[in-house]
């Protein structure tokens, strides 16, 4: 029954860097682009703005040099064409103004886009949850999944916001500058570009080799999230067992790995701009040397070399932009990759149209059902039984016998291995899951409450009014509690506070009472409720179950006694079947279980027998 399924992610090696098969992040960036595609118009417009901004950046300096030319022309004569200066001044002002507005617009729009992308990624992950098999949730590391919703989506958003436009801006500028250089002189352009492209080549190697650091960073962040979230939810045990020293040890190792991967990604983030600046400087030197040689040869004029020197200077701007945004873009890739991994986790078979049964009468049949949580394991073996409409079926047996598994299969939380389960003669495999589940109202072993008001928790997704909710509360014995709460039904339920284990179960049962589905499943619904309240709840449930097929798993045989059919499960098979009185007559499992509860003399331990002698009334 212990199903061991590897995590979505692989293992980790020392120093916070995971050993991983080399894997390209291209797909992840492609995914980001796909999300951007949803906002094509806005995206294209903001990229257009980047183009406008780039053009203006390239042209504005020309007009400044026009002004300096005008001034230097008049230095000796003392006559400066001030009108023309003002004219150019106004042009420059206009260019700057437009450039600034363009830049502001693209920034503004990128703020929208980046958040929309992150929001859609989160929404898609949320919707993905609905398509994942229960097995995923039963084996996943909770905090790690949560980290994908927060840290990873956040990384993608902030990287897009900060770096996407800068990166594109850099590329456009680079192209423009290259074009202008090529128009001026091919040889010198080649010299300049070769150096720069050598730098870019080196950078791309750096990028490739450092991807793993960004990946580790996001993954370790997820690990830390997982570790901490589990620990904080088990705070009672950590306190009671003074586990802080050992927890600290584990924390320290995760923390150190997170630091190491953070350090490495931080270095690479700063490394690229430094390298690119270096190659920019080299390009400058190369242009100067080759240029002066060419001047000596007489193939070009000094003017050309001087012009080139300016180009190289301009060239450095976009190189800086590109290289300093690469780090963020890599981080975005790493974040997107983890989101993509989640989105591509194996799904359930797609929901099909499915057969519906009209008005359900509620006959249920298990035929030779076999099932194992793991390959080659049999939790349920050849389970066969049938239930007539309106019957109450009790499932009893030792813990771990497979009782909850029957519910898992009936609700199609897990799919059966072989055999068939039918409702009114229709195989549940032929029904849509949605329809099948709409046939049952259900209370599970673990009470599930969420952050919201008491009213929201009880009504859940039904449209029950306050009167109905209060009636349900009365039926499960919660009315006194609700009355004593200062905010009544508006009391906010927060994680871990206020309600006792039994009260949580009462709330969950009240929730089920509002559900009008034709069949009923109660899996240990009242295990933490005191027995007087249980009697009350039992009556409510009996009223609810009247005429409905109901499945009850319970250890308290008082809940089981009046069932129409009792299934005694042991090691995944039905060992006995029948009514209370017929089973009690036989010498079997049921009688043994029954006696263990109701024959107190047998339940005494040696120690207590002595103490209690004489104290039992005749």
């Amino acid at each position, binding site marked *: *029954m*212990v*199903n061991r399924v590897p995590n979505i992610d692989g293992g980790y090696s020392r120093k916070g860097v995971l050993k991983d098969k080399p894997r390209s992040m291209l797909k992840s960036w492609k995914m980001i682009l796909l999300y951007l595609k949803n906002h094509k118009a806005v995206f294209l417009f903001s990229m257009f703005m980047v183009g406008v901004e780039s053009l203006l950046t390239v042209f504005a300096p020309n007009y*400044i040099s026009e*002004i*300096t030319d005008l001034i230097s022309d*008049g230095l000796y004569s*003392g006559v400066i064409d001030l009108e023309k*200066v003002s004219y150019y001044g106004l042009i420059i002002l206009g260019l*700057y103004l437009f450039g*600034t507005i363009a830049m502001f617009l693209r*920034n503004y729009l990128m703020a929208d886009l980046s958040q*929309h992308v992150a929001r859609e990624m989160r929404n898609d992950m*949320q919707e993905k949850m609905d398509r994942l098999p*229960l097995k995923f949730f039963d*084996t996943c590391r*909770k*905090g790690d999944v949560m980290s994908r919703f*927060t840290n990873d989506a956040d990384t993608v958003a902030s990287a897009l916001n900060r770096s996407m436009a800068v990166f594109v801006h850099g590329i456009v500028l680079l192209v423009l500058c290259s074009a202008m250089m090529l128009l001026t002189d091919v040889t010198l352009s080649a010299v300049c570009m070769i150096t720069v492209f050598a730098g870019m080549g080196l950078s791309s190697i750096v990028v490739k080799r450092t991807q793993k650091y960004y990946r580790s960073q996001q993954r370790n962040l997820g690990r830390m999230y997982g570790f901490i*979230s*589990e620990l*904080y939810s088990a705070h009672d045990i950590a*306190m009671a*067992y*003074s586990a802080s020293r050992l927890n600290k040890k584990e924390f320290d190792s995760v*923390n150190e790995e997170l630091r*190491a991967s*953070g*350090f490495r990604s*931080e270095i690479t983030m*700063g*490394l690229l701009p*430094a390298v690119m*600046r270096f190659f920019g400087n080299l390009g400058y*030197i190369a242009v*100067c040397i080759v*240029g*002066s*040689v060419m001047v*000596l040869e007489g193939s070009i004029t*000094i003017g050309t070399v001087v012009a080139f*020197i300016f180009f190289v200077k301009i060239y450095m701007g976009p190189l800086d932009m590109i290289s300093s945004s690469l780090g963020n873009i890599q981080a975005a890739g790493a974040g997107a990759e983890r989101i993509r991994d989640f989105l591509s986790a194996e799904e359930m078979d797609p929901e099909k149209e499915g057969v519906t049964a009209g008005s359900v009468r509620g006959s249920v049949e298990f035929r030779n059902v076999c099932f194992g949580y793991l390959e080659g394991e049999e939790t349920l073996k050849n389970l066969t039984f049938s239930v007539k409409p309106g019957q109450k079926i009790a499932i*009893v047996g030792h*813990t771990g016998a497979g009782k909850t598994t029957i519910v898992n299969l009936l*609700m199609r939380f897990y799919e059966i291995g072989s055999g068939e389960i039918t409702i009114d003669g229709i195989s549940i495999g032929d029904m849509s899951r949605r329809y099948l589940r709409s046939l049952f109202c259900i209370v*599970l072993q673990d009470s*599930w409450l969420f952050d919201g008001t008491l009213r929201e928790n009880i009504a*859940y997704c039904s449209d029950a009014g306050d009167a109905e909710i209060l009636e349900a509360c009365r039926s499960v014995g919660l009315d006194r509690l609700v009355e004593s709460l200062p905010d009544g039904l508006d009391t906010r339920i*927060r994680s*871990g506070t*206020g309600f006792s284990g039994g009260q949580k*179960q009462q709330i969950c049962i009240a929730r089920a009472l509002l559900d009008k589905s034709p069949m009923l499943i109660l899996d*240990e619904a009242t295990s933490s409720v*005191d*027995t007087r309240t249980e009697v009350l709840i039992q009556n409510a449930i009996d009223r609810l179950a009247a005429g409905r097929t109901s499945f009850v798993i319970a250890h308290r045989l008082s809940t089981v006694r009046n069932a129409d059919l009792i299934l005694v499960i042991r090691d995944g098979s039905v060992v006995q079947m029948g009514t209370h009185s017929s089973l009690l007559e036989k010498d079997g499992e049921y009688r043994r279980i029954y006696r263990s509860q109701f024959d107190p003399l047998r*339940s005494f*331990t040696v*120690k207590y027998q002595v103490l209690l002698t004489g*104290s039992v*009334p005749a």
Partner: protein
Amino acid sequence: MSSVFSFVRFFRRKEWILSAVTVGMILFQVWLDLEIPSYMADITDVVTAGGTAAEVAEKAAAMTGCAVASLLAGISVSALVGWISSSAAKRIREEEFDHIQKFSFSEVDRISSYSLITRSTNDVKQIQDFIGTALESMIKAPVVSVWAVLRISQGDMTWTAATMTAVAAMMILVYCVMKLSAPLYKKVQYFNDGINAVTSEMLDGQRMIRAHNAQEYEKRKFSGANEALAENNIRANHIASVNVPFNGFIRNVLSMSIYWTGAFIIAGNSSEEMRLELFSEMIVFATYATMALNGFRTLMQIFNVFPRAKVSLDRIFEVLSIEPQITDGTETEGNGSGTISFRNVSFRFPGSGADTLENINFDVKHGETVAVIGATGCGKTALAMLIPRFYDCTSGTIEVDGVDVRNYKLDSLRGKIGYVPQKAVILSGTVRHNVGYGSDSYTDGEIWDALDTACIKDFIELEGGLDISLSEEGRNISGGQKQRVSIARAVCRNPEIYVFDDCFSALDFSTDREVRKRLAAKTEGASVLLITQRIGTARTADRILVMDRGRIVDQGTHAELLGRCSIYSEIADSQDTGGGSW
């Protein structure tokens, strides 16, 4: 509230030394960055003067040297900054973790565990990013600016005035942006907590969500939280998106206006010599003014990351400033008798309007088993939680081994107690990890022994032994198995006092009986406080406390209570099958 720079609180000697080295490296780098252009100018001079390739190469060699040095300085700066920021982040996480470890429930509830998770990860990341991006600029920018301003301090009044105006405009702009965006950034982390909470609930509640076909409902809830986060981020980023373009605009307009006004100033000067001088002065002024403003701009860009980092730092300090209410005493031993006594104990949950427990008095003597029974919500669990001091009682005293629990060192007190909570807690990890939780000194024999007492040895053996892994919250084993592992955990430490909080509820009766039989043998000599719903379990105790609405209404043996306590008889009746088996 504190300054954003109070992150230096997390610096230790090493970080301080490295920071000093970083400052030195950055200054060196700035010097190189200023040096390289002058080599460029030299080379340009040589080229324009028609110098030979050899002459150029000579100058170029020196410049290449500078470029290499600048590269090395750049790399080491990023390494140093990376080291400092990641170590500081590590230390923040560590301090937070250590501090939270000292929290009891009331402190955890004050912040909520969802928020504690974000505050220990995401918020720290914000600080790390801030140090990473800001440290270099924070040192570099002022140096460059001051240096550049010094160069032009003798310039024309008009230009100086223009520069001052530009600087003032930048400051006003940045100030406004910060003022407007700070409250929004403050909410970002709050909304992140919200996403965390909803996601966590959905991961926990998949079965119920599917059973209710509530996917649409959950989707609405999630997209509500998601939308709130995105909208808030968008608004904050919209405001922040003014920063860079308009600071750039101010800088560009300044350099343009220097030339523009320069033309008028030069034209208005009659002396040719003065004109020439003014012209070169203008070029120099424009260059350095731009440089100074670039410095300012870099400094201003920090203010883009500033608000979020500030908020995160405040959130972290909020956690660190919570003084744990439950603190160590000095007593480590007690008299070792394994007794518990409650004297006039009342208890009220923090923030609650009414007492959960009122005037509780009882004793558990050495080797005694005392059962607690009572209606759901009557305060049984609260009573149990007071013994290992998950909370402190509001009035009265609780003594363990004859010593007030508040006088014990917490580890010593809790070391005496084997506490098994109502909701079995299973951690992801091996069975060994789960049963031997809190200590690494148990032998396999001891762990097997504990599993045997909890009647789950066979199952674990069948599944493959102590190293099989249980998933988070024990989702791969059944409810009854979880409870038994949780019981084994208490047994393994062999305590003098056991506190069982209704932890047999998911066990079928024969397993329950068997577990308790083995426990009775194992716990011979230990004192037991046993909270239960089952009369059959309670009646085996030496004494039974009957609780109702936070009070003990009666205590005695099964027989005594049956005779005189109506609540007890009602409970007994509700469990009597009518078969007359007792």
